[in-house]
């Protein structure tokens, strides 16, 4: 029977192309996912290891411990240690011209342990010299010869604060470290003397690196260092390799979760693929009924028939899995090659772990064979007599698995009930399995609702004449086949629209939440970078900015004591009430607005000219500063002088255009910060939070949709596949129609309509289910924040439907072309 199977695959290679393609995609996805993980680890090891590339041993602090200079001295004295680099980090402020920033000062290593790559200039040789990393050099306009002001410390810094600080000259620019712990912050390098002077007591040693003397083994030296440090405190001595592994392990703790999430998507793709494979084999077996019966007639046993189908699946699955793995490797190699060309990710390394290859191959083959089991069993049910019976062209109505339907209904109802429970009690852990169960149940009884719906929607095609009518009939000619094809597409569409609805609903919930959380759209706090307080000029600048609808300077009116701490009280000027998010708040001469949860009835507010006790009105926001009216502020006569020194300065309150999108708001923040000469983070508030949150949601949605797109794509291959197999099956009928006057255009249109009907109805059901699941899911996850009303992303949902319809059209192109190429006589040849 192996011969028969081989002959099948060779003869009908084209019929297996689509199944193969589906398997290639699913296996590729799975393998790529596993490779992402391994490549990330390898890339991290590459970037982290760079810092230790000349060291043999690395000493780091153990839990709760800290390294110090004495330990470095002890390591240096240990037997077999040739040289030691006690790397010391300290935070420094640096200024150049009008710009200032914070960075990490590291002392230079002895030459033999040095791992820096000089880009231009040279490394410092004297105590008044520093080197900076290339990113910082570009950002602050530094180059060899630039003079810098350096001071110890952290916090806000302005260039003028550094005018009395010590000076140093930049001697060179080095490549920025790609160590994730160091990346993104300015890195300065100086000789230990200067570094120590700046660090004072504040520096700390992340590690002590040691080079082992020639002739001593690393193991011996390691033991010597360990004994030298015995009793010195909690330290860990590792070889450079071990150190790299340990740090990578620390970083990839979270990476594992990402891999698990990615794997979940790969599993969905595999599941969809299994449906497509199973459906294809069912069709192939059905089309071969006569041939199988003939084999049975001439003495083939049931087992032999079954085996021959399974062997076919094995052949197709193996070939496609190998291609899928190769494709994944190619794809990842391409991505890594691109990354290596980017300055920030040039340390990226491709890793092809054996387990990724093995898992891809195994999953692909096992999935294909498992999916073919049920069609193989169907093949054994072919009676030898079927070979002698005339072919029944209209095989209307097929036996449905009653057990499967019953189980599906039970799962749907039970899962639905659990999901509803989870949604009403706002418990995602209950809702999640309930949702999954009910969805599996629905898929199992897809043959109950898909064919009637396709038939119903097919009525819409009636006005298109004979092709429309025939398309509607043909789409449900084999209800089982139609259901399975639609179910594969249904999975992806449901998950995509579920994510869209969930995201939109979450957005809605958080919008409402954030509205109440913050007093205004954007608050600008603290001083400008040049040290001057915010003033009316700044307010005017902000008001003129595109996207800002109103701006006001809110000044300090006095101070009060809330929860035992002195808090500045602000003055809401005339006309500034429109800036508040909560328009229902009223402020009169006898009241003070206080943050949510203050729990006070009255509040004494003190100013330069006396104090006043006011009725406290609690607002809905925890970040609300105590606020009094202009009239009250007048009576208080401004803040007391000692308070003015305490640092609480005027704030800028802004209202922004509601229509602005997340990206536009983030841009507005950056632009405005530059214009007002403040740091980005000094701008905060509801609008910013909303934008940041929306950006996260948008990115997540994009990523999830992208991942699910693989499943959708596989399902569409399934649609094209089923259609082309049906076309093969209906060769005679197509020829007859052509002979009777159906034009090739009408024939193509008919098949396109058929595909669009199946894809469109699957998308429609998927969208309805997705919206339902998305809303219930959002209720379960966010119900604790309050009432969750469903919020539908109409545009996105419409886009999903449109994509499904267009994809259906595309899926019909190849089968239709083949059908149209057939001349009317070819199919009519009587056998």
């Amino acid at each position, binding site marked *: 029977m192996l011969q028969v199977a081989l002959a099948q695959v060779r003869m009908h290679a084209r019929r297996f192309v689509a199944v193969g393609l589906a398997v290639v995609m699913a296996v590729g996805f799975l393998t790529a996912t596993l490779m992402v993980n391994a490549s990330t680890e390898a890339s991290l090891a590459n970037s982290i290891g760079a810092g230790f590339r000349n060291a043999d041993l690395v000493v780091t602090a153990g839990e709760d411990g800290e390294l110090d200079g004495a330990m470095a001295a002890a390591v240096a004295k240990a037997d077999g240690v040739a040289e030691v680099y006690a790397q010391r980090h300290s935070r420094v402020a640096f200024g150049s011209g009008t710009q200032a920033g914070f960075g990490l000062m590291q002392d230079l290593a002895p030459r033999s342990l040095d791992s820096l790559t000089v880009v231009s200039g040279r490394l410092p040789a004297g105590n008044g010299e520093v080197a900076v990393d290339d990113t910082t050099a570009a950002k602050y306009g530094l180059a060899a010869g630039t003079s810098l002001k350096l001071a110890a410390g952290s916090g806000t810094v302005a260039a003028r604060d550094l005018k009395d600080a010590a000076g140093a000259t930049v001697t060179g620019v080095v490549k920025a470290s790609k160590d994730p712990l160091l990346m993104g912050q300015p890195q300065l390098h100086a000789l230990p003397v200067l570094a120590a002077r700046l660090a004072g007591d504040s520096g700390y040693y992340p590690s002590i690196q040691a080079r082992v003397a020639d002739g001593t083994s690393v193991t011996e030296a390691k033991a010597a260092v360990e004994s030298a440090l015995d009793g010195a405190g909690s330290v860990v001595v590792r070889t450079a390799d071990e150190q790299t592994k340990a740090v990578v392990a620390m970083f990839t703790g979270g990476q594992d979760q990402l891999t698990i999430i990615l794997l979940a998507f790969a599993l969905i793709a595999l599941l969809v693929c299994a449906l497509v494979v199973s459906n294809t084999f069912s069709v192939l077996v059905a089309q071969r009924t006569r041939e199988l019966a003939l084999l049975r007639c001439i003495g083939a046993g049931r087992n032999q028939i079954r085996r021959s189908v399974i062997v076919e699946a094995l052949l197709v699955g193996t070939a496609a899995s190998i291609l899928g793995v190769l494709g994944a490797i190619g794809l990842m190699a391409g991505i890594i090659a691109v990354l290596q060309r980017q300055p920030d990710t040039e340390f990226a390394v491709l890793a092809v772990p054996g387990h990724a290859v093995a898992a891809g191959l195994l999953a692909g083959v096992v999935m294909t064979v498992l999916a073919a089991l049920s069609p193989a069993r169907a093949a054994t049910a072919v009676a030898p007599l079927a070979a002698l019976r005339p072919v029944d062209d209209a095989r209307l109505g097929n036996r449905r698995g009653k057990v499967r339907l019953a189980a599906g209904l039970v799962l749907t109802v039970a899962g639905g009930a659990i999901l509803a429970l989870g949604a009403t009690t706002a418990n995602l852990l209950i809702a999640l399995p309930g949702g999954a169960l009910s969805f599996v149940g629905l898929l199992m009884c897809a043959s109950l609702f898909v064919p009637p719906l396709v038939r119903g929607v097919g009525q819409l095609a009636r006005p298109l004449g*004979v092709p429309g009518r*025939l398309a509607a*009939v043909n789409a449900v000619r084999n209800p089982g086949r139609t259901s399975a094809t639609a179910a594969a597409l249904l999975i992806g569409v449901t998950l995509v629209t579920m994510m869209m609805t969930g995201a939109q609903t979450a957005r809605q919930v958080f919008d409402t939440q954030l509205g109440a959380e913050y007093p205004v759209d954007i608050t600008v706090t603290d001083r400008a970078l040049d040290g001057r307080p915010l003033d009316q000029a700044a307010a005017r600048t902000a008001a003129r900015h595109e996207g800002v609808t109103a701006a006001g300077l809110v000044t300090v009116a006095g101070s009060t004591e809330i929860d035992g701490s002195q808090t500045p009280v602000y003055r809401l000027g005339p006309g500034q009430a429109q800036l508040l998010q909560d328009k229902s708040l009223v402020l009169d001469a006898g009241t003070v607005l206080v943050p949510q949860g203050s729990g006070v009835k009255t509040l004494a507010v003190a100013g330069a000219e006396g104090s006043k006790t006011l009725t406290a009105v609690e607002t809905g926001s925890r970040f609300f500063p105590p606020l009094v009216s202009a009239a009250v502020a007048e009576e208080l006569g401004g803040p007391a002088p000692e308070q003015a020194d305490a640092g609480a300065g005027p704030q800028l309150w802004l209202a922004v255009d509601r229509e602005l999108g997340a990206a536009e708001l983030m841009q507005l923040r950056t632009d405005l910060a530059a214009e007002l000469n403040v740091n980005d983070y000094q701008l905060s508030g509801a609008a910013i939070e909303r934008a940041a949150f929306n950006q996260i949601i948008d990115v997540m949605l994009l990523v999830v949709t992208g991942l699910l797109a693989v499943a959708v794509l596989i399902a569409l291959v399934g649609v094209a596949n089923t259609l082309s197999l049906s076309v093969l099956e209906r060769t005679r009928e197509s020829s007859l129609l052509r002979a*009777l006057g159906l034009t090739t255009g009408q024939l193509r249109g008919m098949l396109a309509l058929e595909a669009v009907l199946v894809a469109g109805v699957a998308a429609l059901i998927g969208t309805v289910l997705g919206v339902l699941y998305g809303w219930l899911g959002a209720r379960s996850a966010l119900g604790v924040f309050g009432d969750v009303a469903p919020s539908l992303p109409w545009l996105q949902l419409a886009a999903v439907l449109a994509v499904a319809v267009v994809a259906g059209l595309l899926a019909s192109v190849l089968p239709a072309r083949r059908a149209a190429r057939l001349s009317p*006589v070819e199919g009519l040849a*009587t056998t």
Partner: protein
Amino acid sequence: MTTTSEQSPAAARPATAAAATLSLNKTYGSGDTRVHALRDVDVSFEQGRFTAIMGPSGSGKSTLMHCLAGLDTADSGQVWIGGTDITGLKDKQLTRLRRERVGFVFQAFNLVPTLTAEQNILLPVALAGGTADRDWFRQVTSALGLADRLRHRPHELSGGQQQRVAVARALLTRPDVVFGDEPTGNLDSKAGAEVLSLLRRSAVEMGQSIIMVTHDPVAASYADRVVLMNDGELVGELDHPDADSVLGALAKLGA
């Protein structure tokens, strides 16, 4: 009574014939496997007559019919249907011609399995986007004894009933010619005789031109005229044939 000539005299007047060809040639394959399915076929079929094309298996009968009906194109030569030269027409025009001016009855697979008998009968009209002449429809279906079978699907009909549905479909558009390729080949002799009488009646009573391919002398005896083919060539013809004269003519061909 029986005249055997090398060429049909009607070939000279293609414009008035129901269908006609002029030196039609068609080959299949190339090299060693090259088959001359039609060699310089000149033939003309008069209007309102029932003609049978006969010959041994593989003599080119079906190929001739396909070329005549615009289902297939010849390598060289000309074809007329109802006075229209269809040589070199594009697929789209041929398709229109087929649904408006030609009717078909095939040996098997005549009906679309998903459509009812009535829908099958109306199919060419529906494909042309037209409306059927209901009186004519009733007349045809009752003459063919299908009036009470119209709502049935093909698999609910007997073989003879299926062929009668196909005949009704072919007659409904009052085409220039109805072509039949072994229309009774799959039927038992009783059902076959029924279908053949119907075809004969439609030629006699309605003046419908009919061209039927067959290798059955009994079937051919229902025709007004028999055209004999052998090895891709026209080799003679019989007027007003009966089963014996047809058998005799065939025997002469050595078939």
